């Protein structure tokens, strides 16, 4: 389990690294091109991974219907997320951005769980509030939100 915890930790490292690198690239080639590059390189990597792991295709148990269409929207949502990240990285401290992204995920997760199952996780709610307080504590005062933050 320790090894798996380390892998999870590393996934967090790579999350931050990839958006930061994409943002750096966008300084030279623009945000849309950087998003495109992310997907060209990412698709190549995904294809490689697919081939290297034995090219396994799971055939769906039932034929696809129009009801399965929403499952294909992840690609579009991912483009929005990647593109937004490229725009936001230069405008926020990395720490703040990490916490804001997490809080967005956490609170929407709590909301979706509530609407789906009617249950409310008090642990997640309390945790979310504590993390929100932590975010407010860390935010440097008197900083105009729209300033780019490059060290030049």
């Amino acid at each position, binding site marked *: 389990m320790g090894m798996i915890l380390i892998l999870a*930790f590393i996934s967090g490292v790579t999350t931050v690294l990839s958006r930061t690198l994409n943002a750096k690239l966008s300084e030279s080639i623009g945000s849309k091109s950087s998003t*495109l590059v992310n997907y060209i390189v990412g698709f190549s990597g995904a294809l490689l991974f697919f081939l290297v792991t034995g090219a396994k*295709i799971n055939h769906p148990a039932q034929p696809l219907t129009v009801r399965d269409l929403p499952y294909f929207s992840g690609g579009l949502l991912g483009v929005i997320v990647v593109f937004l990240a490229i725009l936001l990285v230069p405008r926020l401290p990395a720490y703040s951005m990490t916490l804001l992204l997490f809080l967005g995920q956490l609170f*929407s997760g709590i909301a979706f769980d509530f609407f789906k199952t009617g249950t409310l996780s008090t*642990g997640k709610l309390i945790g979310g509030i504590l993390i929100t307080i932590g975010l407010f504590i860390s935010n440097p005062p008197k900083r105009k939100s729209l300033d780019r933050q490059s060290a030049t």
Partner: protein
Amino acid sequence: MPELLSLLSGVIITIMNGVNAGLQSLFGDSVAVMLIHLVGLICIIPFAWRKIDLHQGIPWYFWSGGLIGILTIVFSNIAFSSLSMTLATAAALSGQTATSLWIDTAGILGSRKIPFDWRRIISLIFILAGTGAIVLWG
């Protein structure tokens, strides 16, 4: 405004993870990841199809964001299928937080240097407490 957009992005990520999980159960992990990137390509190409000057002296690793993103997906998949969701989330968040603090404190890749001062130390204590609450009672 960037703060609100970041929160919104987090919400979109939740939805995205949900639908992507559905795709993975339909086709298997590795096919799904390919499909997701293919759909992404189809979506972005109409907006971004232009010449990219490859000889600007850009460090090679600036181009690797997409590849590192695949590592994220692979490692997340392994972690979330083996660990409880809250534990995997906590470990991933720890990695993100540690990396973010490093980037801010050291001013990595030209970002604004933000010292790891008392404000951030106290902030971190709240983050740890909050993460603990999620893992223990979430």
